[in-house]
């Protein structure tokens, strides 16, 4: 049955080569921890992606209860954490995943750096990767505000003041981020929500796709 459906689609879309491009290739010895244990450092990128997938999924589920509004944000987070079954776990996955993704990404970056894997011809992929790093930090910064608790508000105040210290355009950046020249409140929360849930993830998807396509085109860097 499944085979027939596959054949039907394949006959029309020729999907087998796409599948081959993704799955049908050889993995060289030097990145395989089964041959050299030290090759476990090559796992960090995959684990970063794994945590990212968990972040996307748990984030999608969290928005079923979360409200980006200063009156209700905290109450809805309190409710989903304490009243909804497994709410503590789903929020916990998102909370701890945010830290883990930074850790894994940091380790992945160091691996690429110290193996010199960013060198020709992989300069572009390195820059895409640094872009992903920046977006992840942005996601961490914007996500920190969303529960609208004490540390969220005051840490964001500091963060926005840092952005405001940019010469010349600092004031404008601050207003754009906070939605108001002085108040850090209702408009800030909705803005951060939109940035955290739509804008940055969209950019992240684009860069991740580029990252993976480049890896498949260029292959893994050779042994040292």
């Amino acid at each position, binding site marked *: 049955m499944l085979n027939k459906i596959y054949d039907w689609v394949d006959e029309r879309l020729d999907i087998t080569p796409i599948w081959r491009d993704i799955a049908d290739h050889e993995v060289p010895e030097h990145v395989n921890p089964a041959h050299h244990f030290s090759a476990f450092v090559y796992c960090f990128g995959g684990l970063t992606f794994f945590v990212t*997938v*968990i972040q996307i*999924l*748990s984030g999608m*589920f969290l928005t*079923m*209860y979360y*409200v980006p509004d200063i009156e*209700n944000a905290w*109450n*809805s987070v*309190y*409710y*989903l954490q304490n*009243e*909804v*079954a*497994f*709410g503590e*776990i*789903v929020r916990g*996955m998102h909370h701890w995943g945010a830290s883990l993704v930074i850790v894994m990404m940091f380790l992945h970056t160091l691996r690429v750096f110290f193996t010199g894997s960013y060198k020709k011809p992989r300069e572009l992929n390195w820059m895409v990767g640094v872009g992903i790093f920046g977006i992840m930090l942005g996601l961490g910064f914007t996500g920190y505000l969303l529960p609208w608790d004490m540390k969220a508000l005051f840490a964001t105040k500091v963060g926005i003041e840092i952005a405001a210290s940019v010469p010349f355009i600092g004031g404008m950046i601050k207003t754009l981020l906070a939605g108001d020249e002085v108040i850090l409140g209702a408009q800030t929360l909705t803005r951060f929500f939109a940035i955290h849930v739509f804008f940055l993830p969209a950019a992240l998807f684009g860069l991740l796709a580029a990252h993976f396509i480049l890896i498949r085109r260029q292959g893994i860097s050779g042994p040292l």
Partner: protein
Amino acid sequence: MSNNKVTRRQFLSYTLTGVGGFMAAGMLMPMVRFAIDPVLQKKDGGDFVTTDVAVADITEEPTRVDFTFEQVDAWYTSEVTNTAWVYKSGDSIVALSPICKHLGCTVNWAGDAEYPDQFFCPCHEGRYEKNGKNVPGTPPLGPLDVFEVRESADGLLEIGMAVPNNLV
């Protein structure tokens, strides 16, 4: 049996599917349980709301009784006012829900001058008899719900949950 040897590749593929399934389940199980929680949450209904209508004052003519209660909707608590059509039927008190069983509009007693002893729904001209039975040939498919009622210690009407009509 021995003809159906599992190749190494097949074995690995099956194991791979198993491990993948384990990971997907580990990730998704808490999330799905989280998402379907509203279906599984126990309803602690059965609370009666005291109205300001004395049971002794209720006549056989359906009258509109508004009753207000505090509705807790997850993190949002609000005052909600509901309406019931209340009348005396023999010794017992009947409180009918005004929600039309057709598409959820609100019905009125004697809302149509042509049928002064029926409930009338203005949306699609649905009609119900006094006990809530839907008049055949009009849009509604079932009788109006009734509220559970009881009398408080000081003689006031108390209204509870809406239940399917048991008078028809």
